[in-house]
């Protein structure tokens, strides 16, 4: 299969055409040799995006999402690579489950890089078989959703993982402080919902930074949502601590005011914070404290969300809205450049996890995506390809709708006009 993409701009390049032969970008060849010629009418080709924080729910929770549906949603969002979190059933804490995920993902519309559990069963006692899981294909370990509360265990995870050069990603929340269902503050007090203080997140971030510095090993902080977290990570980076960090679109577009009507599509961990914290997250994105924008794509069935606020599951889907939110709320107002957004959503996560993604040169995997940056569109939850509908962004007017995504030279998403 040979494809020519013509009449395009190419991200960070002067090229106006791209040639694909099989799975790779290739040197120019005559149009009559091409099986398909795609005319982009001047639109820009970007490298396929990378999301290092996704819950694909398979195995075990296929009623929420499957690898197939999650990857279709990813392709629709412009992603060609995602990292699947290990809180499946059974937990992805051994090579057999890793193999199963990789096998299932072979025919999916997106590359899937499994993340293994840091501890067996996401529990509090034993380190998982990080070495054997690495051989099977994991790219990092994480107990996302079940923060490693015990500092002694966290130390051992960081030490043992470093023997295998395995990145450790931690969801930072002190469970003893975070029994609530939304951010603690005037809004939680006003509507009578138990609050989760920002201190719950800050305390664990500070602990992980201290351990990382003390042991001189890398650590990656997942979904940063607080001003204190941003400040501590910034200071640690300045001291040379090997820390990297991510945040999610909802932390730079939404605040806890949205919870006032008990709409559970605004309920997640960490919770939506106040405007002050939202602005701090944006500052962290601007000055490089935050390295990645991830979705924390967390599909839940309607029956798990249409509940009393405190009883509803945590999390929202995000793959299909992430780029458009970043583009509309960060690039369009001039807060960051489009280049910086592509760093945050492609090159940085790829580098942190050593995935080697994002190349648009001859010989690179032909992973690319094209967005319509000029026309506004309405984000419609009923048009999502994810199996779940738990998005807070339904009806939002955004820029940056995906037009085309290709992974390994094959179309994985194409907007039908």
């Amino acid at each position, binding site marked *: 299969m040979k494809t020519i993409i013509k009449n395009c701009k190419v991200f960070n390049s002067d090229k106006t055409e791209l040639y694909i032969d099989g799975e790779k970008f290739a040197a120019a060849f005559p149009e009559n040799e091409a099986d398909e010629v795609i005319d982009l009418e001047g639109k820009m080709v970007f490298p396929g995006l990378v999301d290092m924080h996704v819950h694909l729910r398979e195995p075990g929770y296929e009623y929420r999402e499957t690898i197939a549906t999650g990857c279709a949603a990813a392709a629709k969002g412009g992603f060609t690579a995602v990292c699947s979190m290990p809180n499946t059933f059974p937990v992805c804490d051994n090579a057999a489950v890793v193999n199963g995920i990789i096998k299932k993902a072979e025919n999916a519309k997106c590359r899937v890089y499994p993340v293994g559990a840091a501890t067996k069963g996401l529990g509090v006692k034993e380190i998982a078989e990080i070495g054997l899981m690495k051989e099977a294909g994991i790219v990092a370990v994480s107990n996302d959703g079940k923060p490693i509360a015990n500092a002694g265990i966290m130390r051992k995870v960081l030490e043992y993982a470093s023997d295998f050069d395995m990145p450790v990603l931690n969801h930072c929340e002190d469970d003893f402080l975070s029994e609530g269902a939304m951010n*603690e*503050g*005037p*809004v*939680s*007090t*006003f*509507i*009578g*919902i*138990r*609050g989760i*203080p920002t201190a719950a997140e800050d305390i664990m971030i500070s602990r992980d930074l201290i351990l990382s510095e003390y042991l001189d090993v890398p650590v990656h902080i997942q979904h940063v949502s607080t001003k204190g977290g941003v400040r501590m990570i910034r200071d640690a980076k300045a001291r040379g601590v090997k820390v990297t960090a991510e945040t999610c679109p909802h932390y730079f577009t939404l605040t806890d005011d949205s919870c006032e*009507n*008990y709409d559970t599509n605004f309920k997640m961990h960490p919770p939506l914070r106040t405007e002050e914290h939202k602005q701090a997250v944006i500052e962290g994105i601007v000055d490089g404290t935050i390295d990645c924008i991830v979705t924390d794509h967390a599909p839940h069935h309607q*029956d798990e969300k*249409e*509940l*009393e*606020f*405190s*009883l509803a599951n945590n999390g929202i889907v995000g793959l299909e809205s992430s780029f458009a939110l970043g583009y509309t709320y960060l690039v369009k107002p001039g807060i960051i450049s489009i280049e910086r957004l592509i760093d945050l959503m492609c090159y940085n996560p790829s580098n942190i996890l050593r995935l080697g993604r994002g190349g648009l040169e001859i010989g690179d995997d032909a992973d690319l995506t094209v967005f319509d940056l000029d026309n506004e569109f309405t984000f419609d939850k009923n048009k999502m390809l994810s199996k779940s509908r738990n998005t807070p962004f339904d009806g939002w007017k955004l820029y940056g709708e995906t037009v085309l995504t290709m992974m390994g030279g094959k179309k994985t998403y194409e907007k039908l006009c």
Partner: protein
Amino acid sequence: MALKNKDLLGMKQLTSEEIMEILDTAKTMKMVISSGNKKTSHLQGKAVITLFYENTTRTRTSFEMASNYMGSSSANISSSGSSVAKGESLLDTVRTLDAMGTDIIIMRHNQSGAPHSIANKINASVVNAGDGMNEHPTQALLDMLTMYERFDTFEGKNIAICGDCYHSRVVRSNAIGLAKLGANVSVYGPRTMMPVGIENMGVRVADSVADCVKDADAVMGLRVQLERQNSALFPSVAEYSKFYAITPEILQLAKPDAFLMHPGPCNHGVELPTAVYDCDQSVINEQVTNGVAVRMAVLYLLMARRNNL
């Protein structure tokens, strides 16, 4: 005379005019209660259901008396012996009740926002009889009726509320309602029981019980749930009653004609010494009567809106 919204979810949703309308109507209803013949026909041919997911007798009985006095046909569902215990979702339960032709569902739930989450999905009017830590609007309305019978206006009156403000829906509803009518509300309790940012609700956070009660026109004690001792919120009853209770000496700091309220049930000797509970300034028993009157007024005004449509 009618309420603007289909439901009574909380004081947050009421205007000051609506609050006054409820209080004025409640005064009339109180005359019905004190008359020999308690029956009215305002709810004749109407179906009222109490749906209680929390064990409580006084609020429920108060609502049941109110709807009985007004001639409704009513049914009662509680958390034991119904689908509630069988794991049916709240939404499914209320949709079933709605399909049976229920006019008003009076709901008590241990989760904040539970009535809000179902109100716009059904035709019946929903009355919030207490949702988690959020609101208990008819309690605030009965407290306000008790004050209204003694004040000519709420404007500038000092109301002191002492106790566990964190878990209290009574505090939230009173603070919101009283602020709308221009009263000055002061609150005090152990810092462990004081929610972050409560001052944003227009109340003053006092430094001590004495500071809270000083110059008050009305003083309200809140029930302390003794099981909270187990969650590190206060160390012992002895300590609580020494530092946080409304003692006779504390009550003397209020204005001379001030009166004492409590939403009940009261832990004698904890938040209030028995001597205070029974003192001349206590209007606690009158609050109970006013509870029925206010609930009659709310049911009447909600039904008036339904009939107008």
